[in-house]
């Protein structure tokens, strides 16, 4: 008898323990962690989208973690991978593409999606993604990461200065910049300097692509794995000579800040009207336009000036994309894919563009904005898109794929720094940066090539 009672009590206990927890598990949403490499208003926007997503898909709970820069993100992810603590989705910048592909931590999007045209009722529709973004992030036509924030380097002009110097439109070529600067610096109320740009390797890459010149060999790493840099060419030297000339004439302001954190110094110089013009990322078009409105001048955005000797082939993209971590459970993977599609759907692509100035990555979003009259009201916002659409897609304008890219950028940035502050020969500096970069590529390939 005692045994029976004992057995029954045990049974009841087991049931009592199992039943509610089982019930909770059934209702418990699938948790998906997403790491975003932003820390400002852009991160807040993503968090809002995630809340919207969680309300729409109660079976999932997306949690956004931010606060890291692109560089810190890569280090963080590598450490997390060693500890098997990777989240579901990771946001890398475009320069990390080769490293991310080689790391083996991520599942190519094309492979995860297979033949499907929709996930959880959301249409994928890759054909709707604009061409430059597709060219950058696909490998043999297959997406390895999911497109999200795409930008391009453009030019902002404080029209108060430009008009005062007798010009109606922003400069189009390097020669124009020189001419404009001569005029602007001769004004009675001339700014401290004529123009500036963040000393970040991306701008050198832009000016190189405009001249249809490669950054690395093997068709910018797209025909085969890149083994050497190609930027110490005539085109590269032309950039260095032009920049050096601009600096020596006192036109170009160099803040001394280098790399991914050099953007802020340009903001301050432009906002306080210490410079008349700036090369910058389209990602902050909205901000730069507003800076003018708030400080009593007009900002006009235009294409990044190019080398008139070689003409303009096109510009390349910047920004980042979303990577799907490999080895997730099917439910988490499904949720992660759903969120990526949701974040870049037509409405969100348009809203993201309006908030920041990043290009709307979907044709349908651009169409929607056009119909709403957004572009007509905000001409600055069309510039980056137009610059990319009008670009001829060549290996040069598709952008480089190379291992250790962030480190290579630092080599270029360091050479640019020496270009301005020493009397060293521009060609020698470029060659030195190239040999530094070649060591990085050689070591990278030694450790990563399959």
């Amino acid at each position, binding site marked *: 008898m005692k045994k029976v009672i004992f057995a029954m009590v045990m049974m009841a206990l087991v049931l009592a323990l199992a039943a509610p927890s089982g019930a909770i598990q059934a209702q418990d949403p699938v948790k998906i962690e997403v790491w975003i490499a932003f820390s400002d208003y852009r991160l807040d926007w993503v968090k809002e989208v995630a809340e919207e997503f969680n309300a729409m898909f109660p079976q999932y709970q997306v949690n956004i973690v931010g606060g890291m820069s692109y560089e810190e993100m890569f280090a963080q992810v590598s450490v997390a991978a060693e500890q098997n603590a990777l989240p579901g989705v990771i946001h890398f910048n475009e320069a990390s593409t080769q490293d991310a592909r080689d790391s083996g931590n991520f599942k190519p999007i094309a492979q995860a999606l297979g033949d499907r045209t929709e996930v959880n009722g959301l249409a994928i529709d890759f054909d709707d993604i604009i061409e430059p973004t597709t060219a950058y992030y696909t490998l043999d036509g297959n997406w390895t990461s999911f497109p999200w924030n795409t930008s391009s380097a453009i030019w902002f002009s404080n029209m108060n200065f430009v008009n005062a110097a007798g010009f109606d439109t922003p400069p189009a070529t390097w020669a124009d910049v020189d001419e404009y600067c001569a005029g602007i610096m001769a004004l009675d109320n001339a700014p401290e300097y004529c123009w500036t740009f963040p000393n970040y390797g991306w701008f050198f890459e832009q000016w190189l692509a405009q001249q249809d010149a490669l950054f690395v060999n093997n068709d910018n790493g797209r025909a085969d794995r890149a083994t050497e840099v190609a930027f110490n060419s005539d085109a590269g030297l032309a950039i260095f000579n032009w920049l050096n000339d601009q600096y020596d004439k006192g036109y170009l302001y160099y803040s*001394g800040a280098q790399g991914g954190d050099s953007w802020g110094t340009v903001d301050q110089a432009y906002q306080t009207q210490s410079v008349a013009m700036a090369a910058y990322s389209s990602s902050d078009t909205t901000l730069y336009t507003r800076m003018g409105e708030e400080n009593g001048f007009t900002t006009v955005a235009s294409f990044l000036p190019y080398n008139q000797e070689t003409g303009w082939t096109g510009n390349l993209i910047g920004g980042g994309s979303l990577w799907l971590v490999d080895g997730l459970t099917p439910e988490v993977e499904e949720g992660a894919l759903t969120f990526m599609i949701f974040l870049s759907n037509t409405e969100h692509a348009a809203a993201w563009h309006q908030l920041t100035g990043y290009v709307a990555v979907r044709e349908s979003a651009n169409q929607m904005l056009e119909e709403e009259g957004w572009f007509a009201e905000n001409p600055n916002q069309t510039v980056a898109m137009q610059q990319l659409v009008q670009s001829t897609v060549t290996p040069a304008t598709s952008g480089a794929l190379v291992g250790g890219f962030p480190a290579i950028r630092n080599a270029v940035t360091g050479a640019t720094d020496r270009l301005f502050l020493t009397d060293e020969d521009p060609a020698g500096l470029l060659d030195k940066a190239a040999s530094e970069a070649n060591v990085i590529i050689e070591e990278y390939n030694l450790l990563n090539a399959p």
Partner: protein
Amino acid sequence: MIISPLLLVLAGALVGAVVIGFVFSSAAHRGLLGAVLGAGAGALGSLICMLPLDYCMFEAERKSIDVIFGVALVGLGVLLALAPVAWLSGKLLRRESLVSATSQPTQGTFRHWWIALPLLAPTLTILVLFLYYPSVETLRLSTMLSRLGARREAFVCVDNYTRLFEGSAYFDVVARTVYMSFFIVVLSMAIGLLIATMAYLPVKGASIYRTLLVWPYAISPAVAGIIFLLMFNPTGGIVNYFLKNWFGVRPGWLNDPSLAPWTIIISSVWKSIGFNILFYIAALQNVPVDLIEAGAIDGAGLLRRFWHIVWPLLSPTTFFLLITNLTYAFFDTFATIDYLTPGGGPLQSTTTMMYQVIRLGVDNNDLGKAAAQSVVLFLMVIGITVLSFRTGGRQVTYGA
């Protein structure tokens, strides 16, 4: 030039035999026993660094700098093995106690020596996990070509170290680190003492501005960095706005290679000064007033009283602050540098050793080279600390 491993072991044994043999013969006239013991220790010592590295720097295709490194490492291993043997045998032969007189317990002791072990276990566990294991791992990484997120690693012997001796770039970084650290420590402590002396004076509302003085220390380095960036930005910064209006000058605080290190020094001093003030005020409160009064009655002026009474009594605090400030200057200025001069300053003029390690490891993902540089940094800080204990430590007066 090929040096065989056997030769190195024999050399280690020879050095060991001579040294320990000498220790033995001078203490107890049993030189032969000492020589045998020393030969064994020396031979084993020569293997300490060479077994994990497998004599890689003596391979035929290696350069002479690698060979020099190899010999130095063998020497280091022999030294590491012989030092404890020499010390221990010296003590034992002279029948001296192994515990020095000053650290003899004055009160109760544990009945069994091993009782200490479980009591130390929590601390030891944490030390092993978070300090010793990472240190050993850093040593291992420093001999590797290793990148964050890479599929594999490659053994490169001591290349990560020898490449530091190619050209003058790394020596510049070391010189710059010493230069900046020196001024940060000296200025921060001197100004801290000056302000503490004034804040210690009995005036109304002293506690309020004593609190205000310590405030900068409570601000996070990143926030301090941003504040200084906005202030010192050469164009659009408030400092140059006033300098331009009043004096017509616009110094390149952040983009002039000769000035940028000073901007870092100024903001680091500002950042750490509160800490020094705090400790100096506390120390000043412990200076007996009757000593100062006695000095005053004897006719000593303000400066004389300070120099002969207060300053010696502050010496324990000064010594403590010297070590903590040095550590701060070497290791904790990263955020200030990174916010004010991202990328390490114009012409790398604000790149300290620590900054370079983080830049190599985190930004460039180059773990092997970063590990080698952090080992060098570690050795340097150890060296400076030992040096200051040897020199400064002797002049410290504890107790009035």
